[in-house]
């Protein structure tokens, strides 16, 4: 099974059919996706700005991050569920959409950045939990995190403007003549 087969299977699933047949589905699911994305971005930013030493300087890094973690994950899970639902509605179009593909790569990069931070710099957090100035590795991870998550939002919004028009017409083809 190729990735394209998987995409088509999602599109042909009951979820895809339901999304296409229910008039209210798309606006409600999209609005929920925005709310979920806003929660992920905002809560991630709270932690990243603490790591960068801009805000919450007197609060322990672990306190700030533990407080936000539940909201970040709740928002992320909700964003994935609503995202898959939107994908299912137009699977083939999304599959071939460059902005969509870049968004998935950026999401993977954001996840990788978080994993590296968790397995690396964060392991010694007891030593710098209350310090205003965190280790360089932590600051780099936080800066990358801000950059990647903001990019995810930008590229995601771009999908809506390229969907369906994301193809190159060969020079020798006159589109008007191909319409019967």
């Amino acid at each position, binding site marked *: 099974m190729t990735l394209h087969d998987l995409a088509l299977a999602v599109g042909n699933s009951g979820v895809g059919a339901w999304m296409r047949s229910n008039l209210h589905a798309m606006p409600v699911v999209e609005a929920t996706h925005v709310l979920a994305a806003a929660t992920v971005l905002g809560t991630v930013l*709270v932690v990243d700005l603490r790591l960068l030493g801009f805000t919450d300087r007197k609060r322990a890094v672990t306190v700030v991050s533990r407080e936000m973690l539940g909201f970040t994950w709740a928002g992320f899970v909700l964003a994935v569920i609503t995202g898959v639902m939107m994908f299912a509605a137009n699977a083939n179009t999304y599959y071939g959409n460059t902005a969509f593909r870049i968004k998935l790569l950026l999401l993977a990069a954001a996840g990788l950045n978080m994993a590296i931070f968790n397995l690396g710099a964060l392991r010694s957090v007891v030593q710098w939990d209350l310090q205003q100035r965190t280790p360089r590795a932590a600051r780099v991870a936080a800066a990358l995190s801000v950059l990647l998550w903001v990019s995810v939002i930008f590229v995601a919004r771009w999908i809506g403007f390229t969907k369906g028009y994301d193809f190159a017409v060969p020079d020798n083809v006159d589109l008007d003549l191909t319409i019967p």
Partner: protein
Amino acid sequence: MQHFAQWLQATPLSIAIQSTSWLIPLLQSIHIVMIGLVFVAVLLLVLRVLGLARTDELPSVVWSRFAPWLRRGVIVLALTGLVLIISEPVREFTAISFWLKMLLLALGLSAIAVLGKALRRDAPASRGLAVLTLLVWIAVIFFGRAIAYDVEVWGALSFKA
């Protein structure tokens, strides 16, 4: 209103924004990033009132931590929103969701101002109002997205139907 929207849509400024292909997606992206800031600021202020977050800090400390996010975020949202309205006034002004969003936005801003007054003085704030404030802001986000789907959401009630 319809005439005003059509007039605005035909102004050189509106046409200039409409015809700059990357401008609208860029402004919408900034708008969404700012929604993240403002929504999480509202969320944490509400949770502080409810005693569910940052209880180790005085309410006034939590207010001064998130009020700047709220203030600056709302300013950027208003500016990007204004340019987006100028670019597509007919689409916005004929949408029920747009007017409902504006009404809820006024309520949401007033509610957070009332909560802020209590938080700043470390005085007890209404828990019911806190919950209501969060719900109103969630509704603002929902109806913001629903502007693009007025007929789908409102059916025969929509002016566009």
